[in-house]
């Protein structure tokens, strides 16, 4: 029994960490721009493939970590380009929320098929950062999973510190709350949108690169995490980055428990049912504020 509990805990932590990396970016883009980015999941896919491509080019002698760092820079640029091409032309339209849902869906289709065109449907794998497993008492975990579990909170803490204790972080939050006031302070609003999108894409990309060291990569690998991130932000309240991160871990553990109890086939339905229940009784999310500012 104890070993089962431990393995559920470990797998919940791994899942929660990945979802937290995903959901934090989704939620940040929502709070700054008021846009729900359906292409967020595919950022994860693109990140993994870009890291794979860089690793291939650099050759097997070089540690995969360097490829990941380079790929993160590429992803930030991809995110910024995405904002520039698919979001920026539609600012100020009164149906912007709806229009950008469609443009990000189109972006999702474009990128997913782009990955398919460039890299083909064949499964691929990225080298783990550190190969091998660790066994300690009842805990049995691959080193890559351990890295995921340790890296995610560090990155999220860094995100928290940036958003709350640096000028650029405060500026990103300010833009989300009141654009006109932000402009009058001298904050370059559109640049903050670029930064927010770039940061979110890098975070999702990182999740993809880390996951690609554990599981095989496919052009549709981002679909399931997007779905989970969606459930996470509904649980956590879309407008709260902290709430989303908390909810990510809750969902991660729930999923681990459900997979053990009802099996992998029924887990998605159970999670969906839970989401519906949450929405029925707390439409603002489990951790969300009572009165979200927009939509």
């Amino acid at each position, binding site marked *: 029994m104890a070993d089962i509990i431990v393995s559920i805990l470990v797998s919940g932590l791994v899942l929660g960490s990945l979802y937290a990396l995903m959901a934090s970016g989704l939620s940040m883009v*929502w709070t700054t721009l008021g846009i*729900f980015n*359906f292409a967020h999941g595919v950022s994860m896919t693109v990140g993994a493939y870009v890291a794979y491509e860089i690793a291939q080019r650099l050759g097997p002698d070089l540690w995969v970590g360097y490829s990941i760092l380079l790929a993160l820079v590429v992803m930030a640029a991809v995110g910024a380009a995405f904002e520039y*091409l*698919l979001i920026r*032309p*539609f600012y100020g339209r*009164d*149906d*912007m*929320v*709806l*229009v950008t*849902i*469609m*443009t990000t*869906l*189109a*972006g*999702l*289709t*474009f990128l*997913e*098929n*782009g990955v*398919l*065109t460039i890299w083909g449907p064949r499964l691929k794998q990225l080298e783990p950062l550190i190969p091998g497993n660790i066994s300690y008492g009842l805990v049995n975990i691959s080193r890559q999973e351990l890295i995921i579990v340790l890296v995610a909170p560090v990155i999220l803490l860094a995100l928290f510190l940036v958003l709350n204790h640096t000028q650029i972080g405060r500026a990103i939050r300010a833009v989300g709350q009141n654009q006109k006031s932000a402009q009058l302070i001298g904050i370059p609003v559109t640049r903050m949108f670029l930064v927010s999108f770039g940061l979110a894409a890098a975070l999702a990309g990182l999740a993809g690169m880390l996951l690609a060291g554990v599981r095989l990569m496919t052009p549709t690998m981002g*679909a*399931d995490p997007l*779905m989970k991130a*969606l*459930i996470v*932000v*509904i649980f956590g309240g*879309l407008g709260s980055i902290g709430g989303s991160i908390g909810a990510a871990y809750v969902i991660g553990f729930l999923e681990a428990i459900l997979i053990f109890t009802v099996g*992998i*086939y*029924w887990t*998605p*339905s159970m999670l*969906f049912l839970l*989401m*519906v229940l949450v*929405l*029925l009784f707390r*439409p603002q999310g489990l951790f969300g504020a009572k009165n979200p500012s927009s*939509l």
Partner: protein
Amino acid sequence: MINRPLAIAAALLLLLLLPLVLQGPYIRHLFILAFLFAIVAASWDLTLGLTGLFNFGHIAFFGLGVYTAGILTTQAGVDPWLVIPIAGIVAALAAFVVAAPTLRLRGIYVVLVTFAFSQLCLQVVMSQGDLTGGAGGIVRVPSLRISDYNFARDQRLGYYYVSLVLSLACIAALVAIARSPLGKTARAVRDNPEYAAARGIDQMRIRLTMLVISAIPTGIAGALYCIYFRVAAPEVFSFSTSTLILTMLLVGGAGSIVGPAVAAVGIVMISEYLEQFPDLKATKHMLLAVGIILVLRFFPGGLAQISANLFARSAKTVGATPERAP
């Protein structure tokens, strides 16, 4: 100026006579697909465009129709003719289930729940392999027959007329609903929620009704799609299918019902033409995605806007721009 009823009558006559002129099964196949997608696009438009309900799970109703037909015909031996209306009912029930938790929610949450629902359907289909065939889908779905006449062996003539008639019937029904008091109220609520609230209009009831109504033709189209292709495959739930239909909706002009149906014909032709080149399958979807963005950017009113300028008389009813956020 062109006389509108005359134009419609001419178009209908053309569609009726077309398969007699064009003998090849391939061209008929293109039109069959176009008719089926026209139903899906027009009925999605009823919720997304006309009612302003942020429904992004419409593809789920189509997929449910496909799988209802696939499962009932192969596993329960139900007659293919009979599963067509049954699929409509199943889709309507599903719409009811999705609508219940979303009606009280604000815009973006409706998007999330409906979208999550369509993804859930895909995951259930993939995981319940015993029933759905999993990733491989259901094959050998029986074809339509009228006593000894087998629709699978007539160069697709029968399917052409069945899908044409169903398509016309569904679109006529959708247009009638759009012009009914219910449709008018829905449009009023979309354009001015505050006014509607002040008038005491029950928005939740309208949204529920519209969602359920729009699911019925979609489920029917799904069932016929399944029976025609004789397979049910999980791709029907994919982003790509959603994108394809969204393109029809936007190119046709959101909120105009007929516009998306007309656009479906053109887009199916282009899409199927590109289908000949298996290497370009992914490229096709990329082109559609670019198409969506360009239409949203430069022709937000779609075809309906253009035709509204052509048919000046109808300028008041068609050519509605995509609804605004509440």
